[in-house]
């Protein structure tokens, strides 16, 4: 039972490069999320999805794109990487929405991204 799997675990990008952070879950959860965590800070929501084909912006969506073609996968795309995108990125899933009946997020172990 893998839960939420994120790849890669670490990545160094040069300014202006692009990359895709992969996230897949095997729990058949409808809700999936991408957060970023800066040093000493909490998590900020980038994008989320309530089901296949449906995505919406969070607090800090600029510089990122997402797609949700299947229930299992929710990749995050960085276009034209900037130093401000240096962060740890977490993918999470839930069913039903977090907070209902005691359910919470299941998080992946994160991707540490450095843009130089």
């Amino acid at each position, binding site marked *: 039972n893998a839960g939420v799997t994120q790849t890669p675990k670490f990545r160094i990008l040069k300014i202006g490069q692009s990359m895709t952070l992969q996230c897949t879950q095997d729990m058949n959860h409808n809700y999936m999320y991408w957060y970023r965590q800066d040093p*000493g800070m*909490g998590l900020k929501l980038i994008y989320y999805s309530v089901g296949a084909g449906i995505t919406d912006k*969070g607090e800090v969506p600029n510089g990122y794109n997402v797609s949700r073609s299947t229930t299992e996968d929710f990749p995050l795309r960085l276009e034209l990487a900037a130093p401000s995108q240096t962060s740890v990125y977490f993918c999470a899933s839930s069913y039903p929405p977090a907070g209902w009946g*005691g359910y*919470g997020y299941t*998080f992946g172990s994160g991707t540490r991204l450095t843009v130089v």
Partner: protein
Amino acid sequence: TQLLEQSPQFLSIQEGENLTVYCNSSSVFSSLQWYRQEPGEGPVLLVTVVTGGEVKKLKRLTFQFGDARKDSSLHITAAQTGDTGLYLCAGAVRGATNKLIFGTGTLLAVQP
């Protein structure tokens, strides 16, 4: 933008001591959760509180949701080195309950 402020930001204590972490907001939450995060890992859910005034206990951890559902606290009794980690509160806002807003985090270090 809703904010969840946690205090203190950092806490270093000796094993066996008690501590309380606070989570405050001006927004009303339909539910509030507490997570613990260890280095190199994602946060792990500890508890969910839903009703104003609710108190939940998880072994040596006691969680309380404020009567007005705007704040919460986490109390740890007789802290152990295994309690070390980043504690995050997270709230589901009414009308937007399909996503959580996370607090600023409290980094706890329990020294042997």
